């Protein structure tokens, strides 16, 4: 997903869930900041680099190609943008293939429940991070947060579902590499990363091969991933985004303390119902960026002005704070929450027997040096 949903739509969801305008701003800022908090930015403000929640294109280009670098990439992308749906999914194949298959992102997995529960009772920044992760489980379905040709590749069998005179038709999507030309929504010429036959190439990370299509709320498309045995998958973004919105409202109510527990496969359709038509209109409007629409909707909801996302909003505050005050600043709380999320997801992946995110040790479980030898849960 992109700024229109992570920032403005999250604001709307938070407000509908009962948060105040100020709280909603804090939540949506953190939700969007997950897409901006790179190591480059952290170095600039002298923040801990392990709190990175994303990697810029240039960082990925410069990344090493060895095993440790792949672990680092998988940790970040699987923890924040491609949360695995089922770490124990039944699959046949070699160990490497099974490990990658089990990192495929999808909504309503056990890890999502843990992500939302991890944010309960924590800062608004933690809530924002959880909302970003939740929203991305819907948009980035069927892709994995690890470089993998077999999981993330797409081929010529890629069609957008359109309607002509009320009849559904398939229109072929052609992917190109001309960034200057951008996405042409009318002709179906979209940007995508170049085809790389190397299984572990960084070009095969996430939904790069499918370009921005998963992040367009209006897009409905069909394609045939290599892992699905010649079966097509259908991605209905307007429906998925609406479900994401309603699930966010439900999760936010839980995080506010209104509800006792958070369950997967549960959505607060009733709370959202008065706004359903307007939301669906925004989601279905064929535009690459819906920020203006969501902003207008949010401002109508709260009667307040929603300022544009400013990446530098809190940087000065953080840089000037003393070492003891830093954790209490907004960025400080964001970094703590990010590290907690990354640790949790990495631990679950490692505990499931999957080594793609590297090793994980539960510090609290260590009593003596003996515990470090061959301890696995």
């Amino acid at each position, binding site marked *: 997903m992109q700024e229109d949903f992570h920032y403005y739509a999250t604001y709307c969801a938070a407000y509908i869930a009962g948060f105040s305008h100020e709280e909603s701003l804090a939540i949506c800022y953190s939700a969007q900041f997950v897409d901006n908090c790179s190591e480059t930015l952290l170095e600039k403000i002298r923040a801990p680099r392990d709190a990175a929640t994303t990697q810029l294109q240039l960082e990925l280009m410069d990344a090493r190609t060895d095993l440790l670098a792949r672990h680092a990439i998988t940790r970040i992308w699987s923890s924040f943008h491609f949360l695995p749906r089922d770490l124990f999914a039944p699959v046949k194949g070699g160990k490497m293939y099974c490990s990658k298959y089990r990192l495929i992102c999808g909504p309503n997995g056990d890890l999502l429940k843990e992500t939302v529960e991890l944010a309960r009772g924590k800062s608004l920044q933690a809530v924002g991070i959880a909302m970003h992760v939740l929203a991305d489980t819907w948009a980035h379905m069927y892709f994995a947060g690890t470089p993998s040709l077999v999981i993330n590749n797409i081929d010529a069998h890629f069609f957008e579902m359109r309607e002509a005179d009320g009849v559904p038709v398939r229109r072929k999507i052609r992917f190109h590499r001309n960034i200057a030309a951008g996405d042409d929504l009318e002709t179906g010429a979209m940007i995508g990363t170049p085809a790389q036959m190397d299984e572990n190439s960084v070009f095969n990370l996430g939904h790069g091969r499918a370009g921005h299509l998963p992040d367009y709320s209006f897009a409905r498309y069909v394609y045939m991933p290599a892992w699905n045995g010649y079966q097509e*998958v259908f991605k209905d973004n307007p429906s998925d985004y609406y479900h994401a919105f309603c699930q966010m409202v439900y999760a936010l109510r839980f995080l506010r303390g209104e509800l006792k527990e958070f369950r997967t496969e549960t959505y607060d359709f*009733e709370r959202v119902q008065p706004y359903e038509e307007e939301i669906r209109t925004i989601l279905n409007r064929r535009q690459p960026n819906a920020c203006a629409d969501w902003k207008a909707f949010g401002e109508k909801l709260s009667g307040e002005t929603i300022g544009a996302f400013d990446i530098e909003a809190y940087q000065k505050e953080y840089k000037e704070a003393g070492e003891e005050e830093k954790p209490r600043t907004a960025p400080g709380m964001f970094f703590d929450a990010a590290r907690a999320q990354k640790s949790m997801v990495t631990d679950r992946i490692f505990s499931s027997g999957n080594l793609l995110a590297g090793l994980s040790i539960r510090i609290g479980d260590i009593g003596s040096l003996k515990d470090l030898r061959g301890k696995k849960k």
Partner: protein
Amino acid sequence: MPTENAPREVPTENAPGEVPAENAPREVPTENAPREVPAENAPGEMPAENAPGEMPAENAPGEMPTENAPGQIQYRRCARNVIISGGAVIMFGLWGLLKSVFYYSLNRIDLVNLLAPELSESLRGQGAQVYRIVNTILFFMFLLIVNLGLPIRIYIGRSAAADARGVKKKSVIYIVLSALIGILLVAGFIRSFDAVPISDIPEEVIRGMSPSDVINLTSAASCFVLTWYAIRLRIMRRELDKEGRRPYVA
């Protein structure tokens, strides 16, 4: 602040866990305190019509526009095999062309001397350049003749791809040609053991098989695979077309 808008007390059973001081949420100004939650969504209760497991009908997933019936999946798999084996038929033809070029170049074959020795002396008398030109012309003719199969292979591969994608209605000629080429390649391999006693053939096959033989047999295999899947594709297409369920193949 009017009492009806004062923040509601969160019941103790829903109170959040203890939050460490360093992670405590920022204090919210009283004028921005949480709004009153409508009574029908009081804490701890999920409205009955949204109880877990229920989804309002208008939000239930609609009919999927995917083509995933068993026959359609098999058709797509078959079509892909036709496209890939058609590509393999072309690639082996190109390999044959490359092999001819290497053979001629690395062996420095004098085609004029080989094909028309009586002309060789008279041509040498006319100068080295003339000799080279005649040799070059003979080389291209030699390539053309030795690789007569290449245009046929290209036709087979392209027809296979077009047939699999349903772009054009293709006749069965390419299937017949593919089978013929495969048979000829196998026959050529068997022919090379003409002079070998039958009892010695297995040993001779293992000892005498060259890389070229391996490639020729693989090429034959790709032709037979193409033939097999192309026939299957036609049979499946006929059945699916009757039901109007032929899937897209990209």
